[in-house]
């Protein structure tokens, strides 16, 4: 972004103003996440930087809130984490299977009423979450699965499939269908062709869809608040309760763990995206 030598002064000024604005916005986006890190190692109970922390005094830092998170008495985080992972894993599997199969059908040029069906399939993503929450609650309550893991898993499959459908159809849009025809002409049956030819090629799209579905389920709080009973508490529910009642440093310890998790997911998603772009031959 170096400016040419002949740039007039006023454009030079504007250019640096523009860079300053951008710098501010990036700071605004990322800085809040980094406030949580140091405060979660606070030795004191207050959510402000103590004088000791400002002096970088080692005594002002401790792991006590992480210990509280794991070993603390009557601590809900263990159960919540277990539930969150179980629900998210099964919801992801359900969403990926249903979504990938549907995306294969949708990408076929023979598919009738494509627009209408696509709109129906991704509707859970475009309808405000609170409305989805009410509707899904009515359904789950009617079939008697309120306050069960299965009920929440079904709810999260509904919310997760649109992401899988979108990412997989996007990957399939650059897919060369002649390779499956080649496989068929060489005597492969459709299932074999899918497993050996199609799936490996669209895998990046499937996995990034799965990541979306996983994160959707793992972070979801609106629908779960309607559905969950005491035994189905999840990390978002515990965070929500904690934030409403008393913002404790233990929550910040949990939040730090969640940020680490999301960083891992981000790295995976980015690597996949680049790989899939390479496969599709998109040059940037």
């Amino acid at each position, binding site marked *: 972004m170096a400016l040419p030598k002949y740039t007039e002064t006023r454009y030079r000024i504007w250019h640096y103003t523009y860079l300053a604005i951008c710098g501010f916005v990036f700071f605004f986006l990322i800085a809040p996440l980094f406030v949580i890190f140091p405060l979660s190692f606070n030795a004191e109970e207050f959510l402000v930087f103590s004088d000791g922390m400002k002096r970088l005094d080692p005594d002002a830092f401790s792991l006590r809130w992480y210990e509280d998170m794991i070993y603390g008495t009557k601590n809900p985080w263990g159960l919540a984490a277990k539930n969150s992972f179980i629900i998210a894993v099964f919801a992801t599997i359900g969403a990926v299977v249903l979504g990938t199969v549907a995306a294969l059908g949708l990408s076929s040029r023979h598919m009738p009423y494509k627009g209408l069906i696509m709109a129906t399939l991704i509707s859970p993503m475009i*309808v405000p979450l609170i409305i989805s929450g009410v509707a899904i609650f009515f359904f789950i309550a009617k079939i008697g699965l309120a306050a069960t893991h299965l009920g929440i898993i079904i709810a999260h499959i509904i919310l997760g499939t649109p992401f899988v459908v979108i990412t997989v159809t996007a990957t399939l849009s650059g897919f060369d269908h002649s390779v499956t025809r080649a496989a068929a002409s060489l005597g492969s049956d459709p299932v074999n062709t899918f497993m050996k030819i199609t799936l490996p090629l669209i895998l990046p799209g499937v996995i990034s869809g799965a990541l979306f579905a996983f994160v959707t389920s793992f972070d979801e709080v609106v629908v779960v608040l309607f559905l969950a009973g005491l035994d189905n508490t999840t990390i978002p529910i515990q965070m929500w309760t904690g934030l409403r009642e008393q913002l404790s440093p233990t929550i910040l310890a949990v939040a730090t763990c969640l940020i680490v998790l999301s960083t891992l997911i981000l790295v995976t998603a980015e690597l996949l995206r680049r790989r899939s772009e390479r496969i599709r031959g998109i040059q940037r």
Partner: protein
Amino acid sequence: MSSETQKILTTDGIPLEVSLKKAEKKNKIKAFLLVAPLLLFIIITYIFPIGEMFTRSIDDRMVTNMLPKTFKAMETWDGKELPPEEVFAAFLSDYRALAEKKEHGKLGQRLNKEKNGFNTILKKLWRKMKNFEEGNAKEQIMEIHKRFRDVKYWQAIKRTAPPYTMAKYLKGMDMYYDEDGKVVQVEEDRRIHRILWLRTLEVAFFVTIFCFLMGYPIAHLLATLPMKYSNLLMICVLLPFWTSLLVRTASWMILLQQQGIVNDFFVWIGLVGDDNRPEMMYNKTGTYVAMTQILLPFMVLPLYSVMKTISPSLMRAGKSLGGTPFVAFWKVYFPLTIPGIGAGCLLVFILAIGYYITPALVGGASGTLISNQIAYHMKATLDWSFASAMGLMLLTGVLVVYWIYNKLVGIDNIKLG
């Protein structure tokens, strides 16, 4: 030559056209069968329940089912003067049946909403009706309380006869049916829902504007920087995007509290005194700041993906033809980014209008939005039909936004990452 001989045949002797159509149909069925499981799943678990929200929101069959004989007898009553003996007799018989099932209390509560004071006189009727003599129900009931001699109470019953009502929708707009069945507005100081609707629109609108103003420059920077720098900066957008909503809300709660870092900073640069730190949380400021940061990635990503496709030579061409950089930007670059602007604004607006968690945590009382009200009626008052009605009103609003968007930009122009 006849047309028969012109047809090309396949090796089986079937005309090619027929054979192709058959294959086409087979492919169609195959494609549809692949989509069918998810389509059925979504329709059963999601589309039908939204329909159920509608029937629930207009459902008013409770009284209809409780007083079947009364409504049958009322069919011939013109509703101007006191109803005839048959209506009284039918009402008494219905009420006795309800009392046996111990459901008479519910009727009293429901009718009390229609006309104040109904519950009291029904309770009185319940106590006295054991001593009633056969026949002559009209006189005996009217004896119990003077309100039974008032035609307005009977009109109130008649009004509950239709199995469907729009009352919940009217309530959502701070209106109700008065005693004559006319639609009237509630008193000025009790119009809470209208305030909430307006506030929701206002917050969604301004958050969209803020996101656009902040998102456009950085999307442009990301799209024009060399890859190795932009990838690094992209993390600043993607990390918040992948981070839990509650984590980001929590960090804003820490930052914006009165002893928080933002206030510390203001004190340090001398903007405010240490003893009168401004309250930045539990009001609209908190809602705006937190929601803008949380929704900003949804603006940047579509903008970025559109800007990435715009060739930098277009701007150079604009400048070489004599435009100043500003003119070249405004006349060449900006119009090309409109699909991205549309997609970003649509996404942010729709997400903001249904927002619930962040306003509930950092918004305080003045930051409550319509979604919070829906959740409140779902979980606290258990008035599910009212929650459904408000949810559907919100949904209608969202669909109108989509429709306008489709007219202006075209829904196919949306680009997501």
